[in-house]
């Protein structure tokens, strides 16, 4: 129960949370294929053909993929039709690119040629202990101080008094079933972490240096240095429960890689421009270019080829498509120079609000590498057989898919109502009829519907209007009695009975606080269609 004096704050916090969530980028594709084998795949590298497209869009994507596969297989024989402009690099092939930071691939058995680390080879250090969700952890790190590589394999064996950590196979579960050998070159680090539940800790005596011993796989014992935890029982509890082996992880070197040396001028020095704004047809491929500029006086190496993401702004809540830049053909951006790459984006079938969209291209984690192209999205041409009209016959009801909606506003909150004039344009190639009163919804930026009742018109409105291709008509919507805070940018969605729905912007920019006055607190807010449909110029 929220106290009455806290209600405003509760609402403000909820709105702040909603704003925060809607501004979050979409999650990348989650790849559960790590369940299958021995390791977690940490990133989606291949250009996933995400199953977000539908119908013709999906078919088109698959066709594109098929083509790219063929292109890769026959690279020598077939001309690269996409490198249309001289100096433009073709977009990346489907094959997964090299990982940005190459790691040695884990193997399920010890590397046979490398000796096991003994106590003479490594120096131990311990991270400050951490606490999270009732669990206390410490990370024990081993640095190879010898002059030749050594490896640690299997579960680390740690003893505390008479308690011994186990090495049964259940310990390896955190890394996917197969212990990986941590092959440590001289100076390299491996590690594991230990811990237990602090909720079961009745005393508070620190575990100090020498209490815990690590037994090295190659022989010898080393004390784990430092103060691990304030709670020794934690470890005795844990080690008593060794058969479950919950928190001791197998060795792994890949988790603690030594950072590779930074190149003199990394790709962060580059800037991006994308090709001119353009028009794209929904459901088809849109070709554009991305140019990487090097303003520095040093050449910038692009290898290993970075991955990039592309997504349109209207699909902010969908995963981006991820590809690898095909930089093998241009591994270096010369000092003061530039390299242009061809890109191809599969335009979704859905028409964004107002037919306008932004196509965003970026390399994740590199803030300077982001570019933006404005797209005007044109609906796909409707096949003649689907138009449903023949010369001389009465024109058919306008399908929402062949209408473009553009919101506007008139009137204002001062008179207690907000009126929006909504323009509907026939984007099809034949005339059609606007008839019937659509249901009105107001949508927040995150596509959730505003709690607004859709009221029936006070007087019957049955003004059908024939709309020639390219012509617009107006529908007037009245919105009354909004007693909440301004909900920010709003879209309006019109649902036509049996003819689909169309969505477009309702308010702003620049101001999005256009809401009707709260005339009747406690009563619901409502929308009503006041007039439909006004011919062009009649509004």
């Amino acid at each position, binding site marked *: 129960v929220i106290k009455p004096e806290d209600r405003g*704050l509760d609402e403000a916090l909820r709105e702040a949370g909603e704003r*925060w969530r809607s501004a979050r980028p979409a999650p990348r594709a989650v790849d559960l*294929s790590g369940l299958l084998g021995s390791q977690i795949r940490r990133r989606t590298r291949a250009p996933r053909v995400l199953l977000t497209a539908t119908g013709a869009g999906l078919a088109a994507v698959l066709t594109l993929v098929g083509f790219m596969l063929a292109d890769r297989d026959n690279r020598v024989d077939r001309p690269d039709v996409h490198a249309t402009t001289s100096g433009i690099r073709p977009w990346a092939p489907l094959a997964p690119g090299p990982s940005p930071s190459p790691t040695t691939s884990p193997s399920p058995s010890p590397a046979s040629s490398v000796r096991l680390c003994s106590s003479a080879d490594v120096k131990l250090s311990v991270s400050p202990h951490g606490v999270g*969700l009732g669990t206390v*952890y410490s990370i024990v790190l081993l640095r190879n101080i010898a002059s030749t590589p050594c490896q640690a394999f299997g579960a680390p064996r740690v003893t505390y008094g008479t308690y011994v950590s186990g090495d049964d196979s259940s310990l390896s579960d955190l890394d996917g*079933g197969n212990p990986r050998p941590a092959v440590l070159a001289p100076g390299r680090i491996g590690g594991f972490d230990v811990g237990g539940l602090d909720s079961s800790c009745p005393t508070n005596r620190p575990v100090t240096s020498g209490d815990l011993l690590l037994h090295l796989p190659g022989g010898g014992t080393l004390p784990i240095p430092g103060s691990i935890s304030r709670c020794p029982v934690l470890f005795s509890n844990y080690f008593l429960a060794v058969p479950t082996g919950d928190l001791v992880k197998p060795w792994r070197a890949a988790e603690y890689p030594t*950072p590779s040396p930074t190149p003199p001028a990394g790709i962060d020095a580059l800037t991006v421009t994308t090709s001119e704004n353009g028009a794209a047809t929904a459901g088809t491929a849109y070709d554009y270019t991305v140019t990487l500029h090097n303003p520095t006086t040093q050449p910038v190496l692009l290898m290993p080829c970075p991955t990039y993401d592309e997504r349109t702004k209207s699909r902010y809540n969908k995963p981006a498509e991820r590809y690898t830049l095909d930089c093998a053909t241009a591994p270096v951006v010369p000092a003061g120079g530039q390299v242009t790459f061809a890109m191809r984006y599969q335009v979704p079938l859905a028409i964004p609000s107002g037919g306008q969209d932004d196509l965003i291209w970026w390399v994740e984690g590199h803030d300077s590498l982001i570019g933006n192209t404005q797209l005007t999205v044109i609906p796909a041409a409707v096949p003649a057989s689907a138009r449903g009209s023949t010369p001389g016959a009465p024109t058919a009801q306008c399908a929402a898919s062949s209408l473009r909606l553009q919101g506007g506003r008139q009137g204002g909150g001062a008179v207690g109502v907000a009126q929006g004039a909504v323009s509907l344009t026939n984007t099809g190639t034949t005339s059609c009829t606007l008839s019937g009163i659509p249901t009105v919804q107001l949508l927040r930026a995150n596509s959730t519907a505003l709690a607004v009742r859709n009221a029936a018109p006070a007087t019957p409105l049955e003004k059908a209007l024939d709309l020639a291709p390219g012509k617009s008509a107006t529908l007037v919507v009245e919105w009354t009695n909004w007693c909440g805070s301004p909900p920010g940018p709003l879209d309006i969605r019109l649902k036509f009975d049996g003819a689909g729905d169309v969505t477009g912007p309702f308010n702003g920019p620049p101001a999005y606080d256009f809401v009707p006055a709260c005339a009747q607190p406690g009563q619901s807010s409502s929308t009503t269609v006041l007039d439909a449909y006004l011919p062009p110029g009649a509004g």
Partner: protein
Amino acid sequence: VEVGGGTVTLSAEEARQAGGVAGVSVEADEFAAAVLPHVSVLVDLVARLVPQVDADDATQEALVRAWKRWETFDPSKGSLRGWLCAIALDRARRAHRRSRVVAQLHGHEVAAADEIGRGTDRADLQRAVATLSRRQREAVDLVYFVGLTVADAAVVMGCAEGTVKSTLSDARRRLRPMLEVAP
């Protein structure tokens, strides 16, 4: 398969194969179908509470972890969402600790949590929330920002629902004068 903004790429064949791994009896597709609606919440959760780590990576690690622990999930102790959130937060905090240790070893600076952008909060709200105690901030983040129910937040915080409610109430009492929000 796409649900809740997350995408799982797992073919039926892969799912069948996965079902036979390591004595796990449930089918991977059953698991995938169960967790999919929660993926975007998990990513938001990590992004909000442990902004220093890669939320997608931590979520993926958490899902693999959840898969391996699938048989230990007990619906009578709380919702699936709460259980997954607890695992995701655990994974994320471990990942953060690891990265801190590695960074310290290599002499890198590690940005404190508050120095890292947490999205598009208004600055005043952000500052006010930052003054809350750790538990209060956690409750506010879980319920208001990640959008969890009080019951799910209780699972994640490891306490009773009533404790979450009283923590939230304390947090609001502390925030009110700072934000000057009319009731």
